[in-house]
């Protein structure tokens, strides 16, 4: 696995985070939530530190990270775009909206544009089904999005 060098003070912060949960293996998911909050994603190096601190194997940590869709081993773009693929959005045309984003950005789902500006992902139900289809970019929520709106939305960033 490729090494990502993280600064020494950040390593300490991560170790402190593990200590806050008493290095208790049962708290692994809480620790990973915290670590992803600190770094934005969970590259191999971070998983290795967490494994050592909590006295579990790296394979165990990796197994948990890859099991849950909320955890990511790849950095996200500056503006993460999520297309809601819940059933309500799907039947109101979310797939066409997704295709339009893919076409404009020229990336696949799960990828980031080469300039690091946008990343594209799908999520399952924001719960704003009255606004279907829904797209979120960062914290901002766009409702009743049609494929024609996509160009304009991207233009805002």
């Amino acid at each position, binding site marked *: 696995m490729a090494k990502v060098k993280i600064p020494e003070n950040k390593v300490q912060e991560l170790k402190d985070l593990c200590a806050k949960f008493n290095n*208790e*293996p*049962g*708290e*692994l*998911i*809480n620790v*990973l*939530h915290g670590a992803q909050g600190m770094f934005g994603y969970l590259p191999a190096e971070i998983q290795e530190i967490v494994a050592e601190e909590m006295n579990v194997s790296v394979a165990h940590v990796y*197994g*948990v990270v890859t*099991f*849950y*869709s*909320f*955890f990511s081993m790849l950095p996200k773009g500056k503006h993460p775009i999520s297309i809601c*693929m*819940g*059933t*309500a959005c*799907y*039947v*109101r045309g979310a797939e*066409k909206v997704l*295709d*339009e984003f893919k*076409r404009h950005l020229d990336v696949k789902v799960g990828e980031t544009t080469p300039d690091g500006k946008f990343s594209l992902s799908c*999520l*399952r*139900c*924001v*719960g*704003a*089904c*009255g*606004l*279907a289809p*829904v797209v979120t970019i960062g914290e901002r*929520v766009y*409702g009743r999005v049609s*494929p*024609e709106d996509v160009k304009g939305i991207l233009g805002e960033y």
Partner: protein
Amino acid sequence: MAKFKNHILVCGGTGCRASESEAIAVNLKRSIDENNLENDVQVVRTGCFGFCEKGPVVKMVPDNTFYVHVTPDDAEDLVLEHLIKGRKVERLLYVDPETKEHVSDSKHMDFYKKQIRIALRNCGFINPENIDEYIARDGYSALGTILDEMTPEESIKVVKDSGLRGRGGGGFPTGLKWEITLQSESEQKYVVCNADEGDPGAFMDRSILEGDPHSVLEAMAICGYCIGADTGLIYIRAEYPLAIKRLKIAIDQARDYGLLGKDIFGAGFNFDVEIRYGAGAFVCGEETALIHSMEGLRGEPTVKPPFPSVSGYKGKPTNVNNVETFANIPAIFLKGADWFRKIGTEKSPGTKVFALAGKVNNVGLIEVPMGTTLREVIFDIGGGIKGGKKFKAVQTGGPSGGCLTENHLDLPIDYDSLIASGSMMGSGGMIVMDEDDCMVSVAKFYLDFTVEESCGKCTPCRVGNKRLYELLEKITLGKGDEGDLTRLRNLANVIKDTALCGLGQTSPNPVLSTMDNFPEEYEAHVKESKCPAGQCRALMQYVINPKLCTGCTLCARVCPVDAISGDKKMPHFIDTSICIKCGACMDKCKFGAISIQ
């Protein structure tokens, strides 16, 4: 709430907040201050009103005027016109779609008429971030009475007598579950609230936690007393930031008031609640998987028995109930088991909350008595199909459920009737589909979900569902043959019989129910390479009818890949080798000249 003369309730649910309800509340407050009304009028951010289609929603109390589609710019008018001049702002009133008349009180709207709210009793009425408002509506008095006057056995009998069944989908009798956990001997036991609502298109648990978190905390404490547990754990999706925030506030307030913690109501009963976060795995809604996830492991299910009520979290007896089940508990104790039994059907008493969504006019969160028919839900409450299209199917039970057709519209909804007709209650997602939805694609959509969410532990689910998906993909691409239909059905039945947990066992339901109810659609795909609903892109071609085309050039301008050519005022032509079949041209054509073949 006595101090102020008027209250303005602003919906603070996730749906309305996504359309700027927070800015409305801020603007209202500013306008109130500017007009020196701050001692008379209070702005309250409530939980979900349910009528998401018309959001953001604002309600004026005490006169109950219900404003819809409010924008931040309307705030000033609401204060100047409604509050100061006493005139209703007509442009923001709900218009009855049939009579075209303004309806100002939600009581008279078809959307609310047939609803009975038990689990949602406080959503949209109280400020969920203020424990006093919950207490003012008899909050925590059920807990007080039980601790004062009843034994755990007597309390469990009330739950058993009420006939309440698990609202997470399984429909297991709640009282019985509590009794089994009480009878499991152990010094340490746990109460777990399952708030891992992973079913796409379902948002009832989130809305309850956002709108009335204390009802769940009170019920968990009651459950703790009944089964002999001092610790409650709420397992909630990390994707629900607002619900998490309000839960945390509620837990802190309950601790401050001595309603959680040591020696509650001076009755010597200790109980406290902690929050655990999910991390986006649908299978964690299954109770054994959920418990493993809380232990910091991969959320893989294990074989039952042992059931969690005997050996659950950290190997101790654990009672797992879903959010909506808990939300019913305080009301049952306040009003009695007999009252609850009178609502709903004999075998499924009470109400059920549904997240009504899809191609229906009134998308929203509704609560109806069990036994209400699908027709009443979709056409009376839901206001019928969007755009006057024809109803085709309704999907209940999410990825584990099935699609029901027009023939099922008069079916009274309860746990048993839905299973008998090939679907299931599930957690309460209800997605309405119209004539433009292809049922093979819908089945494929759900399989895509299951394949992604399968934990991979057992082969039938991990490999079988993938193969099912591939067969459906082949059919939607027009490459399927009749043998594929037999293969699809055989494989689906094998997965159903052999998968380890509820996720795998129910995953073929969307395929089987669509094959049973819409056989002609599957046959059209494999025999004629046609998609009757016109949704499968590989099977369709957009063509312009030269007789109807006026050469207005609108389609050519809207085409994102410049596949349309033609001179002004002359019939246009679509180059099918370039066309990406996005359908933008057909949507824009004013003359109906473009069709799918």
